[in-house]
């Protein structure tokens, strides 16, 4: 059975009841992995508490940080500081220079763009760079739900173009809710049906809600585990009784 993931929940951490309600609703809708956009300076204790709340609901917390650098140098600095603290690193690209840097950096997991179609810099050059690195293109469904009329028409048209580029360069897609309240959460199959509005086939959309995000989480958890050395190499035993090679 598919395990679905919503890697972008943006709840308010001040209202714990709303936070718990959102986690419970997301789990009831069928999500197993819940990625929460956490403040970069969150303490280990607070993460542990969140993990506890998620596991009580039956879900699996994925720690995520959203970086919004102004310049590419700023991005490199932030990646150096936060990469090893969070399981998923998403970069909101506010300029073309940042988008290019984020697409080619292997420490970036998700490329995220503002909802305004004029500020989305995912083009063929970006797709080509992202295909050589590990970054996936993230599509937040909250903006599709909250926009109306012409703004939604423009956004859907832009997303259709981005999906086409992602398909051409084999850039993975990740569909997330981007929800900041319960009312913007939808079941995975409902999001997949909504994805047909920008010409993403149902099977690809379901894949972008399950295998795609799951593989990012598993890859990063492996990298952050203590025994990890390099891709394909990990410490399986340590001590004096280990055979010498």
């Amino acid at each position: 059975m598919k395990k679905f993931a919503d890697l972008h929940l943006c709840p308010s951490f001040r209202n714990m009841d709303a936070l718990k309600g959102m986690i419970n609703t997301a789990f009831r809708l069928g999500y197993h992995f819940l990625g929460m956009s956490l403040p970069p300076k969150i303490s280990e204790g607070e993460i542990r508490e969140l993990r506890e709340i998620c596991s009580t609901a039956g879900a699996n917390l994925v720690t995520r940080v959203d970086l919004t650098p102004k310049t590419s140098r700023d991005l490199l600095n932030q990646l150096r500081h936060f990469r090893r603290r969070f399981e998923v690193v998403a970069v909101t690209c506010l300029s073309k220079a940042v988008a290019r840097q984020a697409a080619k950096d292997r420490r970036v997991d998700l490329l995220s763009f503002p909802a305004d179609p004029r500020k989305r810099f995912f083009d063929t050059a970006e797709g080509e760079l992202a295909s050589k690195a590990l970054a996936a293109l993230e599509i937040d469904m909250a903006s599709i739900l909250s926009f109306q009329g012409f703004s939604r028409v423009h956004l859907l048209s832009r997303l259709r173009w981005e999906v086409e580029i992602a398909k051409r360069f084999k850039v993975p897609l990740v569909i997330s809710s981007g929800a900041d309240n319960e009312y913007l959460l939808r079941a995975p199959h409902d999001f997949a049906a909504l994805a047909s509005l920008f010409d993403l086939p149902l099977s690809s959309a379901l894949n972008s809600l399950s295998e795609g995000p799951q593989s990012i989480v598993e890859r990063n958890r492996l990298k952050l585990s203590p025994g990890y050395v390099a891709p394909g190499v990990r410490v399986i035993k340590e001590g004096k009784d280990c055979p010498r090679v």
Partner: protein
Amino acid sequence: MPKGVRGRYLALKIVSEGTVTEGELTKALWDAVLRLFGEYGASQTGLLLVEHNGERKYAVLRCRHKALELIRASVASITELKGKPAALHVMGVSGTLKALHKKFL
């Protein structure tokens, strides 16, 4: 729906502040379909509100089986009912009303 056309029944959970009447729900559903797919698309859905329970906050819809994804997308796009934030979640889909009741309601 014409005889011989396969249908699908959808069980919906209504998440909203306060209760919603049958008329308000029907209007919200048709508005969503018309907004996303236009009159031509809406004419292919065969959409019908079969059941509505305001107290238990659920509803049952019927549509043509070929229009299922179209209806799912329209239902998911509803974010407001009576001007207040709301969401409609599809609890399940079935080919018969009897099976829908047995499995999801």
